């Protein structure tokens, strides 16, 4: 075996040799060696090969700009004094930077309390959800039992049915938990934890699906070896499968965190006084007009700096996480192989 360095060296030499040969062939006249079709093919390939990277760069640059534009705009707006919003001479770079918007928005959103609540609920719910979805996915991937097809159809239905349909009955379920009028889960974290604990949290169907596909892709020999050594199925799952599924766990956990963080539909239905980041951001406009404008209704134009500051505050944690763990978002999905539907 050649080392990587040597392989690189070989590659270099090979390329040089091919180049030299091409040069020689050109000097002697290509017709001697190649058919006209081959010559045409090579020429076209060379032309495309030199023009395409430029096009590719232009396309990607333009589209990256489309994606990054709102973020750049957000940052540019959030850190400028409000007066400079209406200054026509300021487009991207404000004349002076200020942290006032951020500070005021921080206060209006009660940000320390909000972010702690959100983090606590998201992390607990996501961990529960990942564990239960993995167990369920494994059950669907490796065991044969009656009604498996029917049960899996229910999982697919969980993906397709919009949560809005079942929100009201679900509210009743939480309000009168197991038919009792005294236990109400509304406005407590349990409204999030309970479904997550039973593999029915946000987008649980999709996660079960991902886990099923992932476990099906792992070789069966792993488990057979464990069974032969006398492990029961649960122990096999814990000791053999879980360590092998690390990437899938991480990916699902990350997506789960992101979706819980961003969710405002479910949380706005079940929480009145529990503040999560996305709820606070959703209501930021109304809250601002109470706190900063003495109950007048300012136009969104006036509010924009604070709104954008709120955006900056609420996506910064996600962005930081994304920058550090970006690899796992992308690789995890690629490897977990939703490919074989």
């Amino acid at each position, binding site marked *: 075996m050649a080392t990587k360095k040597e392989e690189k060296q070989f590659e270099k030499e090979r390329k040089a040799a091919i180049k030299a040969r091409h040069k*020689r062939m050109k000097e002697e006249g290509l017709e001697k060696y190649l058919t006209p079709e081959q010559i045409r*093919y090579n020429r076209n390939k060379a032309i495309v090969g030199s023009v395409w990277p430029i096009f590719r760069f232009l396309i*990607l640059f333009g*589209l*990256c700009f*489309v*994606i990054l534009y709102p*973020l750049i705009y957000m940052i540019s707006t959030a850190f400028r004094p409000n007066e400079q919003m209406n200054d026509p001479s300021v487009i991207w770079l404000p004349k002076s930077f200020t942290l006032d918007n951020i500070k005021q928005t921080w206060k209006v959103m009660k940000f320390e309390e909000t972010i702690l609540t959100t983090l606590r609920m998201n992390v607990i719910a996501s961990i529960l959800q990942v564990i*239960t979805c993995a*167990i*369920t996915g494994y*059950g669907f991937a*490796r*065991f*044969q039992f009656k009604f498996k097809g029917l049960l899996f159809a*229910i999982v697919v239905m*969980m993906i*397709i*049915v*919009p949560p*809005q*349909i*079942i*929100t*009201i*009955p679900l509210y*009743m*379920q939480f309000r*009168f938990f197991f038919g009792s009028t005294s236990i109400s889960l509304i406005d407590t974290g349990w409204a999030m934890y309970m*479904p997550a*604990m*039973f*593999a*029915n949290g946000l987008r649980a169907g999709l996660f079960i699906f991902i886990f099923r596909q992932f476990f099906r892709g792992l*070789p*069966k020999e792993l488990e057979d070896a464990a069974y032969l050594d006398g492990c029961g*199925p*649960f122990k096999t*799952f814990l000791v053999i499968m879980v360590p092998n599924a690390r990437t899938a766990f991480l990916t699902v956990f990350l997506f789960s965190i992101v*979706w819980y963080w961003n*969710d*405002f539909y479910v949380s706005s239905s079940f929480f009145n006084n529990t503040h999560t980041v*996305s709820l606070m*951001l*959703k209501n930021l*406009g109304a809250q601002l007009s109470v706190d900063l404008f003495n109950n007048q209704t300012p136009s*969104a*134009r006036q509010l*924009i700096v604070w*709104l954008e500051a*709120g*955006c900056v505050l*609420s*996506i910064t944690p*996600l962005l930081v996480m994304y920058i550090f763990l*970006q690899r796992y978002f*992308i690789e995890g*999905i690629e490897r977990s192989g939703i*490919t074989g*539907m």
Partner: protein
Amino acid sequence: MSEFEKDLLEQEDEAKEALEEAEDAVTEQAEDAVREAEDEAAEAAEEAAEELVEAAEEAEELSVIPEETVQELAEIPDDEPESSSVRSGKAAKGARISYERKKRLYGYGFIALWFVGTVYFFLYPLIVSLVYSFHKTTVGTSGMELSDRGFDNYIRAFRRDPNYTKALVDTLSNTALKTPLILVFSIFIAVILNQKFRGRTFARAVFFLPVIIATGPVIDIITGNMSTSGTSGTAEQFSTLFEANLVDELLNFLGIYNISERLTEIINTLTSDIFNLVWNSGIQILLFLSALQGIPFSAKEAAQMEGATGWEYFWKITIPYISPQILTCLVYTVVDSFVDPGNQVMEIVLSKASNWEHGYMAAMAWAYFAIIGIALAIIVAIVNKFVYYEVE
């Protein structure tokens, strides 16, 4: 050594290398095939074993009475050794069955948690909302109070409500327009992102950014359709960024005056569409990228040997290989756009929820859901005919 001889030697070397590579590829493929065949065989064996076990169980059930009679008969002292051997055989068989049964029970064990949760948090509410849709609901102190309405809610939605049908048609046609656009665009981007170039990691990271941001309320502020305001959000600003002063001037310079307004309009819609397109296709790009990486290298090599152009390669190799993924993405895109709380039908449905007309809301949602289901079934049935599944 003459030039020609050198050439020959070089070519020989190259040929050897190519051969080696080909051999490697072949062995890899063969290994893969063997592994898959093994898997399949194992599965088949398992299934067969299960069938056997089931058959054995049935047989056992059937043979319970005769065996008992046999045992009764066997209590005659003469046949004692035989009966004991029967018993021991039966015991061994029983143990095996219980192991298989155990495994099946473990299967139920693994999904039990989910099943309980689904019945309580998904199926029951689903059925309740179906019941609501046939009733008029009022909120009482200890739950919903229902009074029977029959199909009245549904009739009201389709016949009397001026907004619902219109919103439904709009949403359906909007989805029908948007879905192919998103699919084509995300295949295109995925193919680009799958090539090797400098800064690829950065480009990928940027293109998946919408996945993180676009599901939250931040996107509402960015695109400016917050319910509280008629603000011009970024999407609009983005298109005004390109508002065609430049195009205008260019056309005026060329001496063309009349069409510029029309052109401006087109450019505006196009740019804001690009914004929505890019921001809505993060997951699809991710899925296609993973599919593209699943294309075996041998296929690419073969295509190159045959002298396929990029265009031919795309249509004859790429598209067939990722076609299962196209179906997945199609379903995902359609569902995503139907379920989006921002679309017109959802807005109407949700507004009814905040008006406490839950029965009516449930009827609208169920009608909508039924239409989605039928549409999806038709789409999947049609597209599935064109999907190429690799069978080895």
